[in-house]
C-alpha cells in the first residue's frame, strides 16, 4: 500500500474517464511527435542529399521539379538537354565540378541513373561487393535496391522505359551488375547507377522502335526532343537529363545561373532556394497540425481537471476519512497530483508509440511509392521537452482541483454522512 498504488486504483476505478484522458493526451503527443519525427527526418534526408550541390541545370520547366527529379529522384525529369550545351557550361572557370545525369529508365520500380564515377564519389560511396563500372551496360547498385531485389554481382537484367513497372522492356540490351554499394543513407541507396553510355546504347536501338507501343509520357517527351531537326543530320546527338554543378564561388555562381536562364534554352535551379520554398509551403500545414495537437493536449488536461474535480466532490468523505486515519493534507494532495502525472506519463508513452507506428506506416507507404525510407526508432530531444510539457499539463490540471484538500473540514465532513 502506497500513494502510487492508491492513485493507480483510483484511476482503474474509473476506467472510462481515465481512458478518455489518456487517449486525448496520447493523441496530442502522437501528432506532435509524428510531425517532429517526419519533419526532422525529411529535413535530414533533404539536406544530406543536397550537400555539395550548388546548382542543377536542366531543361526548362518547374525549377522545383528539376530539383526533386535530379537530386532527390522523386519527381519526373523536366526533359532532356543536349550534352554539348551542358558541356559548354562546365568549361566556365566558376564551375568546380559537374556531374551529368540521365534518367528515364527503371528496373522493378527502382530508377536507373546514367552518370559517371563522379556521382558515386559525390556520395563517398563504398563497395559492399564488386567494383565501379568500367564500361557501358555495367551497373552499380545501391544498398537498398540490392537488398530488396536480391541482386548480386554478375546478375543481368533488362531495364524498362519510364518509372512504372508497366514500361517497355528494353529486351535487346541487358545490364550486368558489377558492384554493390554500402549504405550511404542518401538517395544513392535507392538508385541503380550506370555510365551515361549505357543509357545512350539502350535508347539508340530503342529509337528505331515504333512510337506508341506502350509509350508513356516520358517516352514521348524524349522522342519529341529527338525528332527535332538534330535528329536527321546528327544521329549521334547525345542528350542528358540534367547536370549537378558545384561552384568555386557560390555567390559568383548565382550570376552565372541568371545568365544561363536568360541566354540559353537551359534552366538552372538552386537546391537551397527550392527546398526552402518547399518547406515553407509544408510549414504552414505542419504549424496548423501542431496547433490542433496542442489543443488536443489541453483538452486532455481539461478532462483530467474535470474528472478530478468531480471525483473530489464524490470522494470528499474518503479524503476526510484518510485525514482522520493520519494522512497529512500534503500527502493527499500528492495522491491526487499523482493521478494527473500517471495519466500524463501513460498518455505520453502511448503517444510516442503511436507516433512511431504512424511513422512506420507512413514510411512503408513512402518507401513503396518513392523508395524513401525513414528511421523509425530514434527518440528526439524535442520529445523530452514534450514529455516535460505533458507532465506540466497533467500536474496543473490535477493541482487546481486538488487544492480543495486543504479546505476539507474533517470533523464536519465525517459527521455529515
Amino acid at each position: 500500500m502506497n500513494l502510487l498504488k492508491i492513485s493507480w486504483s483510483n484511476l482503474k476505478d474509473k476506467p472510462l474517464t481515465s481512458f478518455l484522458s489518456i487517449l486525448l493526451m496520447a493523441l496530442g503527443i502522437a501528432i506532435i511527435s509524428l510531425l517532429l519525427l517526419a519533419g526532422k527526418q525529411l529535413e535530414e534526408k533533404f539536406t544530406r542529399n543536397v550537400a555539395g550541390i550548388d546548382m542543377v541545370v536542366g531543361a526548362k520547366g518547374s525549377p522545383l521539379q528539376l530539383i526533386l527529379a535530379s537530386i532527390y529522384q522523386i519527381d519526373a525529369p523536366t526533359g532532356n538537354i543536349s550534352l554539348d550545351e551542358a558541356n559548354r557550361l562546365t568549361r566556365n572557370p566558376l564551375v568546380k565540378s559537374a556531374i551529368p545525369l540521365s534518367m528515364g529508365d527503371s528496373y522493378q520500380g527502382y530508377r536507373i541513373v546514367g552518370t559517371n564515377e563522379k556521382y558515386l564519389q559525390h556520395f563517398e560511396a563504398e563497395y559492399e561487393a564488386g567494383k565501379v563500372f568500367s564500361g557501358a551496360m555495367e551497373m552499380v547498385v545501391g544498398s537498398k535496391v540490392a537488398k530488396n531485389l536480391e541482386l548480386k554481382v554478375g546478375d543481368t537484367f533488362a531495364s524498362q522505359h519510364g518509372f512504372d513497372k508497366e514500361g517497355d522492356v528494353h529486351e535487346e540490351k541487358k545490364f550486368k551488375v558489377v558492384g554493390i554499394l554500402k549504405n550511404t543513407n542518401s538517395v544513392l541507396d535507392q538508385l541503380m547507377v550506370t555510365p551515361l553510355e549505357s543509357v545512350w546504347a539502350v535508347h539508340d536501338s530503342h529509337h528505331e522502335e515504333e512510337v506508341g507501343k506502350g509509350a508513356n509520357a516520358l517516352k514521348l517527351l524524349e522522342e519529341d526532343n529527338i525528332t527535332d531537326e538534330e535528329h536527321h543530320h546528327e544521329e549521334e546527338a547525345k542528350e542528358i537529363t540534367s547536370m549537378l554543378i558545384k561552384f568555386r564561388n557560390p555567390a559568383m555562381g548565382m550570376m552565372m545561373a541568371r545568365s544561363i536562364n536568360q541566354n540559353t534554352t537551359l534552366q538552372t535551379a538552386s537546391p537551397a532556394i527550392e527546398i526552402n520554398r518547399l518547406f515553407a509551403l509544408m510549414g504552414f500545414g505542419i504549424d496548423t497540425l501542431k496547433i490542433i495537437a496542442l489543443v488536443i493536449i489541453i483538452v486532455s488536461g481539461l478532462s483530467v481537471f474535470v474528472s478530478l474535480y468531480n471525483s473530489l466532490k464524490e470522494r470528499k468523505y474518503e479524503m476526510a476519512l484518510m485525514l482522520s486515519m493520519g494522512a497529512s493534507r500534503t500527502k493527499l494532495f500528492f495522491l491526487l497530483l499523482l493521478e494527473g502525472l500517471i495519466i500524463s506519463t501513460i498518455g505520453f508513452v502511448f503517444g510516442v508509440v503511436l507516433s512511431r507506428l504512424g511513422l512506420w506506416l507512413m514510411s512503408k507507404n513512402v518507401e513503396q511509392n518513392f523508395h524513401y525510407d525513414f528511421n523509425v526508432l530514434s527518440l528526439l530531444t524535442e520529445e523530452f521537452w514534450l514529455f516535460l510539457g505533458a507532465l506540466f499539463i497533467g500536474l496543473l490540471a490535477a493541482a487546481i482541483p486538488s487544492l480543495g484538500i486543504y479546505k476539507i473540514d474533517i470533523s464536519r465532513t465525517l459527521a455529515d454522512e
Partner: protein
Amino acid sequence: MIATQNLTFSYSSEKNFSFPDFSCADRETMLILGKSGKGKTTFLHLMALLLKPTGGKIQINNQEISDFSVSTAADFRAKNVGIIYQKPHFVHSLSVMENLLLANYLAGRSQAKDLAKHLAESLGFAEHLHKKTTQLSQGEQQRVSIARALMNKPSVILADEPTSSLDDDNCLKVVDLLKKQIEEIGASLVVVTHDQRLKDVVEKRINL
C-alpha cells in the same frame, strides 16, 4: 485508558456543549447514550482529536492530549485511536484488504497482512478480503470497519453509532465482537449511541 474532565466545545456562541466527565480503563467498555442533537458525535470527535476542545482535559494512557497541535494530534490519533463511524466508509477504489492495510500505511506503521487476515477470520469476512468494499453487505462492511479500527492495535476504540443500521441479531454480534477484540488487544472501548438495545449488554454508561 481514556478519561475526560470538564470538556466543553462550542460551534458558535449559541451552540455550546459541555460534557460529563468519565474515565474508561483498558479492557473496559463505556456506553455514552444520548438523543440526536445532544452532541454525541461532537463528544466523540473531541476524544478523537478531530475537534479541539474550548475547555477541559482529555487523557489517553495518562497522557494529556487536549493541547496537541494539529499534526501531533493526527499522528497520535493514527497510532493510538481506532475510530468506527456510524456508516462504514472506505476508500472506494481499494479492496477490503487494501483498506485494512491503508490504516497501517497512513499511521506510518509496517503493513500487517497477517493481522488483517487474522482479524478477517475472527470477524467473519475472510472470504471477502479481495473484493471491493461495495460488494459487501452492510453488516459485513461494519465488521470490516471494526477490523480497520483495530489494525494499529490502538489503546482506545471510539465507535459512533456502530449498530444503528443493524438488526437486533447483528447488533448484538457486533458489540460482542468489539468486546472480544478489546479484550484481546487490551484497549478501552467508548461507544456513543442512541441505540437503547446496547444498555443491557454494557455495564458502564453515562447519559448526555
